[in-house]
């Protein structure tokens, strides 16, 4: 069944305050961390690029918070700081990778959002879009062969741009054929770098594609935390229960450029003033306060706490050693050749 915005509030769950509070705190920590990354970039402290998830925190964090670290697997993409944080990635992984600390998971060998901890079920993305879809399928497939798949779910996110790739199609189709418990969240932020939806796909809503793959499809307002929590929660539940792959299309707007090198000046004002142009954090605060899930003072305290935590993570990563080309192990293989005959 297709679940659209109109009937998104399925099950009328009394969204556990705990979940919303946890999810919101991940959103907040991600936003504050990313604001810091932006200023570090502008101060010349970060080389390469900085890619932010501003405007996508609600959908990303609800996905991350719906997964169970150590059991589920999650392949985040470019704008998933909130999802990573909600899934359990420590902030220091982020600052270390952006600032090139050798103590980070990528040890200066890769940077920014190209990081992960595959051993904890969170693979490191590559830049080639759609590529993580079959990868997550493979992780789930392996769990099935090992007999550990029961009750597990695997998730990945893509943007509207990635839905045009062969890898996305191949991966989703394969996951459907293999009936894997996979959730693919499509964050339709209306722009792939500078390319608008009108030059990316021709269907009315990307969720229409779910029917083609024979998988569950959901469409949700990505700026609405409670809606996201409800829809993503349901998609994850269905996948976990053996319902096969689920696709969630979240409608929102990227509140910035493609990266911090890009001012996003091509985003028209009409999109910014549109419903989806609103800031999901502000919406979430209102929802939390109005729903009685949190009080303003509490949220302010969370903000202060997150700011301090971010400051600590930045300071620590900045003080740590950077890679030394003379001591680098320049080996792309774990095997050390020559091997000797046994």
């Amino acid at each position: 069944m297709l679940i659209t915005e109109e009937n998104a509030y399925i099950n009328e769950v009394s969204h556990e305050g705990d979940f919303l509070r946890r999810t919101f705190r991940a959103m907040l920590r991600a936003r504050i961390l990313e604001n810091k990354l932006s200023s570090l970039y502008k101060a010349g402290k970060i080389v390469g690029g900085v890619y932010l998830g501003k405007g996508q925190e609600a959908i990303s964090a609800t996905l991350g918070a719906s997964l169970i670290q150590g059991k589920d697997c999650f392949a985040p993409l470019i704008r998933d700081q909130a999802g990573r944080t909600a899934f359990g990635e420590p902030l220091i992984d982020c600052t270390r990778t952006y600032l090139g600390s050798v103590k980070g998971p990528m040890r200066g060998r890769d940077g920014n959002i190209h990081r992960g901890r595959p051993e904890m079920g969170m693979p490191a993305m590559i830049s080639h879009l759609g590529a993580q879809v079959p990868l997550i399928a493979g992780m789930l497939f392996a769990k099935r062969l090992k007999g550990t798949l029961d009750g597990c779910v695997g998730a990945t996110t893509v943007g509207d741009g990635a839905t045009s790739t062969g890898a996305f199609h191949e991966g989703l189709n394969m996951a459907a054929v293999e009936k894997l418990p996979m959730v693919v969240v499509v964050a339709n932020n209306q722009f792939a770098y500078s390319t608008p939806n009108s030059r990316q796909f021709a269907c009315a809503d990307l969720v229409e594609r779910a029917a083609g793959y024979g998988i569950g499809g959901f469409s949700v307002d990505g700026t609405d935390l409670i809606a996201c929590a409800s829809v993503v929660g349901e998609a994850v539940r269905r996948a976990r229960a053996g319902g096969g792959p689920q696709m969630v299309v979240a409608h929102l707007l990227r509140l910035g450029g493609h990266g911090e090198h890009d001012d996003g000046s091509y985003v028209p004002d009409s999109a910014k003033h549109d419903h989806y142009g609103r800031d999901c954090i502000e919406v979430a605060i209102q929802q939390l306060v109005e729903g009685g899930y949190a009080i303003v003072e509490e949220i302010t305290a969370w903000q202060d706490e997150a700011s301090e935590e971010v400051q600590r993570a930045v300071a620590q990563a900045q003080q740590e050693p950077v890679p030394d080309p003379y001591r680098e192990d320049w080996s792309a293989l774990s095997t050390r050749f020559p091997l000797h005959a046994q």
Partner: protein
Amino acid sequence: MSGVTYIDAIREAQETLLREDPRVFLYGQDISNFGGAFKATKGLAEAFPNRVFDCPISEDAMIGLAVGAAIEGMRPIIEMQFADFSSIAFNQIVNQAATHYYRTGMPIPITVRLPSGGTPGSGPFHSQSMEGIYAHYPGLVVVTPATVSDAYHMLVDSVKLDDPVIYCEHKFLYRWLKAKSIKGDGLPIGQARIARPGKHATVVTYSAMVHEAVRAADRLQADGWEIEVVDLRSVKPLDLDTILASVARTGRLLALGEAFPWGGVTAEIVAKVTEEGFHLLDAPPQRLNARDTPVPYHPKLWAAHRPTPESICDALRKLLSF
């Protein structure tokens, strides 16, 4: 039929691996009950239920899935129906699998079987030799067995390696090449062997061209030339020690390959020998490859496109007369 063919060896290696290692599974197109386009997996689906899977025609996703499974501790063997189609999976192989260990510290033990090389009538899209392309990328092991025993042992060893392996099996050898039995071969991956000893010139080659080189060497024997043939076995890592030792004996080098002539394995061999063994050379090192066109369909064109014993003899005579 007595004896073991090259493809029997590949099938048996997979059988051994499935039997001995629960982490191994096979994933590919038409490989389950059908037994594969070349019957390299014949009977394995029956013998090993839920270990051998047919998959959609999605080469990209096949490798993506394999990488994901490897992260979860499995040792998948992916059969590309033809090496040529691995171009669809190129991104996942060179960007996902090959970079993974260097980036994250976690190696990806997948083995990608590439039915490679030309056979008469196969044409441009079922005849390619991709070893040079994959060898170019850091993070991949590329093996090119030329014998029945190597086909068996190197596939077993490939799956045992913790790193991604591109296993290039030559389609022409599948049923053409036979041995009495699979011999226990002590040579590990990364070590070349001397397929035929000689003292006047060295041919460094791999895969099916080993046999063409040996045939050419046999012909030149009649003229009193003793040609040494080095079978690389794996093109990456490249066993430069064995190559240089051979060139030290002969002073002359012909690098021979079936792939396209621009760059590639033969160019790398010549570059390496020139860098490290210039003082060993009595003549400029030579290369012999296929022609710089797509692989043609018609058997007559195909036979003239790839190196043959005749063209290898010509190249060697030119090298010897320098």
